[in-house]
C-alpha cells in the first residue's frame, strides 16, 4: 500500500470522532479497509499490480514473455547486457534460419565486465531474435525463439 503509517493513524483519528465503524478506500493503486472492533481498529490492504504503460511494461516484465506452441525459447541464464556477437563489428553468433544444437553458443551476456556464453540448450532452427544487441535483459527473458529442426 502507498499510504504511510502516519496517514493511517490520521485517518483513524478522524474516524474515531465519527459514528462509523468501517471505512473502505479504493484507488487504482490500493485498497485500504479500516474496521472498528472489540480490540480497536484493524487495517487490511490490497496493493494493486502496478499498471505500467505498455512501453515500460515490456521492459519491466520481460520474464513473462509467452511462447506460442511448437516454439522453444532460449532464455537469459542471468541478468546483464545481451550481445549477439563476440565483439563489436564481428559477425553475430547466429542469424534467423541457422540450425543450432544444445552446445551452440548463440549470444553472450555481460555482467560486471564478465562475458557469459549463452548456449542454445536444445536443437532447433532460429526463428526469431527477441532482444536487441546491447539491450539489458533480466534473468529468464526470452532471447531467441527456435522451431523444431
Amino acid at each position, binding site marked *: *500500500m*502507498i499510504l*504511510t*503509517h502516519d496517514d*493511517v*493513524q490520521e485517518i*483513524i*483519528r478522524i474516524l474515531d470522532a465519527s459514528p462509523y465503524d468501517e471505512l473502505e478506500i479504493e484507488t487504482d493503486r490500493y485498497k485500504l479497509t*479500516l*474496521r472498528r*472492533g*472489540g*480490540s*480497536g*481498529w*484493524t*487495517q*487490511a*490492504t*490490497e*496493493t*494493486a*499490480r*502496478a499498471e505500467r504503460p505498455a512501453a*515500460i511494461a515490456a*521492459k*519491466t*516484465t*520481460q*520474464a*513473462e514473455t509467452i511462447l506460442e506452441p511448437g516454439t522453444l525459447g532460449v532464455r537469459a541464464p*542471468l*541478468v*546483464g*547486457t545481451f550481445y549477439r556477437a563476440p565483439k563489436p563489428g564481428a559477425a553475430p553468433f547466429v542469424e534467423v534460419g541457422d540450425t543450432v544444437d544444445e552446445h551452440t553458443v548463440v549470444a553472450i551476456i555481460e*555482467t*560486471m565486465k*564478465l562475458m557469459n556464453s549463452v548456449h542454445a540448450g536444445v536443437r532447433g532452427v532460429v526463428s526469431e531474435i527477441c532482444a536487441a544487441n546491447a539491450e*539489458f*535483459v*533480466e*534473468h*529468464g*527473458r526470452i532471447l531467441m525463439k527456435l522451431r523444431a529442426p
Partner: protein
Amino acid sequence: MIHRVLIANRGEIAARIIRTCRRLGVETVLAASEADLDSVPARLADRVVCIGAAPPARSYLNVAAIVGAAEGAHCDAIHPGYGFLSENAALGHACNDAGVIFIGATEEQLASVGDKWRAREIATAAGLPVVPGGMARSTEEARALIESIGCPALVKAVGGGGGRGMKRIDHPARTDETIALAIAEADAAFGDARIYIERFVEHGRHVEVQLLGDGETIIHLGDRDCSIQRRYQKLVEEAPAPNLGGDLRKRLHAAAASYGEALSYRGLGTVEFLVDDRRGEFFFLEMNARIQVEHPVTEAITGLDLVAEQIAVAEGRPLRLSQDDVRFSGAAIEFRINAEDSAHDFRPSPGMVTAAEFPAGPGIRVDTHVEAGSTVPPFYDSLLAKIIVHGSDRADALVRSKAALAACRIAGVHTNLAMHRAILDDPEFRAGGVSTNWFGQFWRRASA
C-alpha cells in the same frame, strides 16, 4: 544525490525501504527472484528486475546479478536491507568497481566487523570489555582455553554472527567432539573454519546500541533490548531497554560510540552487548554493519527515519543531527509475526495467506509484505510482519500491545501470534529485563 536505488532484498524490509524512497522522491528498482515477482514490494516498486531463480544462492546472494541489475537499470545506489548480502564486503567492493553507491558501511568496515574475531580485537583495543575467551586453532588449544575460562562455554564461528554457527559446551569432556564439529560446520557454512571460544554468561541480557556515523562523527540513537530469543533468533524487541540500573545505560552508549569511533564508522550500525545487570557488567558481542530488523522501535522513540539517514550518509553528506538533537520519547515494543506454527515446535508454515488484518491506530505501526492473497515462499525467512507499538511509557506500550495483538488476524498460514499473546501476559516479561535464557523456560511452562 541518489536518484534511483536498487533494492537488493525482499519481504517487509524491501517494502519499508520503498516507502522512505517514495517520500524522498527517490525511484526504486526492486531486484527480485522468480518467486517474488508478484510480491507486495514488487507491486510497490517503480520497476522490478528479475535477478534469478528462487533459491537465494541464485538470486539474492548473487553479487554479479545484483550489481549487473543495478548497472542495467541505471541505479546510482544499492540498498542491501538486512540479511542476504547486507554485510558482504564483496558486494561493497563490486559496487565501488561499478561506480554504484553501496548504502552501508565501507568495504573495509564490513570486512573488519564481519570477521567476528577481528571485531572482538577492535573492541579490546577500544577499551570495551569482552567475554573471557580466545581463538582455538586445534582441539588442544580449545581444551586449554576451556580449562582457563570454565564451562559452560560458547563456541563461535569467526565467519558467523547473528547467532549462526554457535555451539555450547556444558562439560569439558565434550570439548573435542564439539570443536571438531564446529570447525567442520564453520568451514561448510561460512567458508572459514576458524572458531573462537567464549565463556557462556548465564544471566545475560541482549542489549544493543544503535549508531549512526558519517565517517567522522558518530552519534548513538539509544538502546534496544532483544533478549526474547528462541535459538538465538529475536522474537520481541523493545526500546529503551527496560530496568537498566545506575549508569549502565550511559556506559553502554559511550562504549558503543567508542567502538564506532575506533572504526571511523560510516552509516547505520548496531553494537551488540551481553549485559549482566545483576553485576552491572557488560561485554561486547559483535557489531552489525547494516539496518536491523528491529530498527522501528528506535524510530518510534526518536521520531527519526533511519533509512532516510542511511541514504543521506551514503550521499556523502555529514550527519544532519548532533547527539544533543536526539531526543527519546516513551517506549516501543516490536513483535515479530512469523509464519511458524508455535503450537507445533515452530514448524515453518509457507503457503497462501488468505486473510491479513493488522491492528491500526495511535502508536501502532505495522511493517509487512503480506496481504490476503500473498504467497509465503518456502525459500526465505518466515517473517510476515512486525507490529510496533509505541506508548508514553513501557506500561502504556504494554496496554496498547495487548489490544494490538488481540486485533491481529492472519489466516492461511500458521503463525506465532498465540506465542506473542502469551509472552505479553507473562508477569516476568511484564516486569521487564528478562535474560536471553528466559524464553526457553517460559515456553516450556506455557506449552506444558
